[in-house]
């Protein structure tokens, strides 16, 4: 894959912009996923993903390929996501009223009319999203990169330009905080199964 990336980069640098198109097609879902997990808002994630690729388009001619293309792209995306989170936090600090609901935390709350399985999945996603949204930006980024993207501590440290020990500490405190926030969800899957079984029995009866 890295070889193909290099070929697309080479094509773009040679003036063939379809090389860029291929890179966008290849990585857009992953970058969107990363940004969604960071900002927990699908529209914002799409907008930020566009911003990432616009930056890539402009910077690609100067890309030295000292790292792989995806590593470089990923780093840009993380920075764009973190900047967005910082901006949003400052906006909240300066403008939002204390009683205002956090759209990030509640955007995905389900409607009770949705089918049972969907309702549980959406509720779960909303609860996890609300918990992750409670984490400070850096902890959130480290958690997402490690838990969902499977990056090593060293890779995260390089992407965030910090020490490996700092990454370990962020991850530890992130998980510990999530543990508190998600306490009531423990056994949620078991509950989900029980409710589904009881629905099944009603239908059978």
């Amino acid at each position, binding site marked *: 894959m890295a070889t193909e990336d290099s070929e697309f980069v080479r094509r773009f640098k040679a003036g063939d912009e379809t090389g860029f*198109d291929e890179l*966008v*097609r290849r990585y*857009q*879902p992953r970058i*969107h*996923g990363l940004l*969604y*997990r960071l900002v927990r808002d*699908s529209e914002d994630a*799409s907008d930020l*993903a*566009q*911003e990432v*690729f*616009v*930056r890539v*388009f*402009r*910077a690609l001619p*100067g890309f030295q390929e000292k790292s792989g293309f995806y590593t470089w792209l990923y*780093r*840009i995306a993380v*920075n764009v996501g*973190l*900047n967005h989170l*910082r*901006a949003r936090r*400052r906006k909240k600090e300066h403008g939002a009223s204390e009683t205002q609901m956090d759209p990030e935390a509640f955007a995905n709350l389900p409607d009770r009319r949705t089918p049972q399985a969907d309702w549980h*999945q959406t509720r*779960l*996603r909303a609860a*996890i*999203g609300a918990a*992750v949204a409670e984490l400070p930006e850096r902890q959130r980024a480290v958690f997402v990169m490690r*838990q*969902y993207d499977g990056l*090593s*501590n060293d890779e995260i440290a390089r992407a965030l*330009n910090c020490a490996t020990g700092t990454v*370990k500490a962020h*991850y*530890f405190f992130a*998980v510990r905080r*999530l*543990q508190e926030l*998600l306490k009531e*969800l*423990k056994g*949620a*899957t078991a509950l989900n199964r029980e409710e589904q079984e009881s629905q099944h029995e009603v239908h059978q009866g």
Partner: protein
Amino acid sequence: MKCTRVERLLLEYLEHRLDPKRAPSVHEHLAGCPGCREKLEAFRQTLAITTLDTLPPAPDPERFLQDVRRRVRVETADTRRWTPRILVLGGSLALATIVLLGITLSVRHRPATAGSDLLEAALAPDTTSVADFLDAAPQSFEVLTDSERQALYGLESELVQNTDFDDLLDELNTDEMSQLLAGLEHVYGRPPKGG
């Protein structure tokens, strides 16, 4: 090994990422410590729950690509539109101001090496806008805060809209950007007009 030390290693132990030299002592501690075993189980459950989080569908790839290309075209056109107007202002005034602001901000509360890196990025031949400057200096994400980056964009916008330097200074001194520009006092050798 003490419980507090073991607790900090539990996540790596759980994910099989722990240094092999340390793993046996953690394993041994866990065998004789119900409290730490409980903590290990709590971490395991927490991580298991978070894996249930699913992603919404990504945007349609072709439509997304079209949107990106459109944004690239618009931003490129914007850059071309303002560049000649900057020249009207007097050569490298805009760039010099951006450089000075960048350096001032970086020196004020950032690592010492950041200033020279920003200077190099700002003086690069391809740097003709704030967006170029930020692209050319990836470390600017770390060095500059978001409000400082916004201030640079705001400064750029003022430079584009004003063709008279005195008017420009008056304009700058009427808004919050003057607070940031006040930091340039020692570089200019005099306080900003009206500041």
